[in-house]
């Protein structure tokens, strides 16, 4: 089977602005009109690790396979998934970039149209991560330092997502930036907060969209954090969290300063200092 360069990887470690960017790209493609979050069903930001996509593409129940078997099959689905016959599909991804034991790239260059990599200060990621996954802060920090950190790997119950390898925050960043050879557009969450219009211009150019300045400005306005939070409060966000916890929580940079202890900050900076320096976080 010949692969076509029809896939855009929108990759990030969790809690780094991926959902916000997906919503913005959907909005931008539609010219900047406010979108209904309740109907985010199109081919932008489809979560690549949804189990049923692999099952449907390969005619097998991945839930009858062990995680290591599923892993070998994951690179085989590109070009097979029905994505409403659009030319390119933007996939939301939280996996690190790597090869399977067969040597296949999980996200192969032959199938890649473009790559956008979102990154966020790991001290803020830790705060958001603990809230999202309902773990205490020290546990969140520990998981972010674990190169073997994998999710959806249970073998005693079903999960709608396929097993994924997040790795550590630092390894996640370097896997996409250095090892993938996919030449990603790197976008910092903090820059999305400061000048979202400029970020969208860069993304639009990477995607080879001819977005107008009017559409970009309308998108910035339509996807302001308070708008998204308002829609979630009104019950119109299908990807929300369990319980009363908001998905769109604070949407700011630097919340770690009033949340993390001195020891926790030191641990994150020790674990990830080198990559933090490289990205301008230290």
């Amino acid at each position: 089977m010949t692969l076509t360069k029809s896939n855009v990887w929108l990759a990030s470690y969790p809690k780094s602005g991926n959902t916000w960017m997906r919503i913005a790209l959907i909005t931008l493609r539609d010219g900047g009109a406010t979108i209904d979050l309740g109907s985010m069903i199109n081919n932008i930001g489809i979560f690549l690790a949804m189990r049923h996509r692999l099952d449907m593409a390969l005619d097998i129940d991945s839930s009858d396979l062990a995680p290591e078997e599923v892993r070998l099959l994951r690179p085989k689905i590109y070009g097979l998934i029905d994505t409403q016959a659009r030319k390119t599909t933007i996939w939301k991804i939280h996996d690190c970039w790597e090869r399977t034991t067969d040597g296949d790239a999980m996200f192969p260059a032959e199938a890649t149209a473009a790559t956008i990599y979102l990154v966020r200060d790991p001290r803020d990621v830790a705060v958001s991560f603990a809230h999202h996954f309902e773990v205490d802060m020290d546990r969140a920090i520990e998981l972010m330092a674990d190169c073997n950190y994998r999710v959806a790997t249970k073998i005693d119950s079903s999960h709608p997502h396929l097993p994924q390898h997040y790795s550590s925050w630092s390894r996640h960043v370097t896997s996409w930036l250095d090892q993938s050879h996919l030449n990603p557009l790197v976008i910092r969450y903090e820059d999305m907060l400061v000048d979202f219009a400029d970020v969208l211009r860069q993304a639009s150019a990477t995607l080879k969209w001819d977005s107008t300045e009017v559409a970009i400005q309308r998108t910035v306005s339509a996807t302001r954090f308070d708008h998204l939070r308002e829609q979630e409060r009104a019950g119109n966000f299908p990807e929300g969290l369990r319980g009363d916890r908001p998905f769109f929580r604070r949407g700011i940079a630097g919340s770690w300063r009033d949340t993390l202890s001195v020891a926790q900050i030191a641990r994150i900076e020790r674990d990830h200092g080198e990559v933090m320096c490289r990205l301008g976080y230290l």
Partner: protein
Amino acid sequence: MTGTTSDLSLCGWRVRSDWPLPELIPWTGEDRPADILIHRGKVPKELPGTVRKNPLVQVNEQNWLRFTVRNVADYLVRNGNEVIIDTPHSEDTPDVTLFLLGSVLGFLCHQRGLLPLHASCVEFEGRVIAFAGQSGAGKSTIAALLLSQGARLLSDDITVIDVHAAGGPVMLPSFPRQKLWRDTIDALGLAPGRYLRSTVNLEKFDRPVAGPFDNAPVRLDGIYQLYPRMRQGTLHLMPLDNLQSVRMLYENIYRRTAAGLLGLSSSVFQNCALLAKALPHQALALPDGIDAVTRLGPQLRVMLAPPR
């Protein structure tokens, strides 16, 4: 090809298999040639005359289909009446049977012009109802929950439907087994049965369902599409209109990609449209989590009462 007493029954077909299939009930029907032969043999790596393929499936110009499950077996499915199994494993390896009674059964159905739905089906309080949904949607769990309330299992995971049967669509009961995860087994207090996989580590079980089982076709009364309702603690039922029903059925066609490779996409779609017209379809949203689902047994019973 008549007369042996070791023949088996699957969906009303007479099956002769040299691969042991204790999952199936014995054939007790008329003395006639076998409808389906299953045997071990050599399956070529590349199916001669392959015209369409994806990474696990090859289809050739005669519409023979080769399916491979790495480290388990290669299967050749042809003419809707023969399956050849090529495996290095011994006959007590459940992994080979799992994909035979899963994907391969789906391929056979497509070759035979039947509609396999990704659904479990029970007879409950006089009605025959199927629960369709993707992997993990809760099909087997709902069926197991209803079995504990007196329902009779007709199929698990795959529901084979004859849309063109005289008098309206019927389902063809398959075999009295369920595939259940450890967490469902524990939540419902069931005995696990045997592991579905022995070559890898997976806590998923093949559980025999007690009671009489009959392969005679039965009229379908309704289909429920299951979907998880995140963040909600209750069940929610919603009728689907004709268009929604067609779409729901099409999305739940079992092994739909292979049907496309076999050149059957349009007939599958037409069968969905016929089925959508013939039966009431509803969407049933389940709460998140196995414990929440099992607590809702009594509410489920009320909801599944026949529509007035």
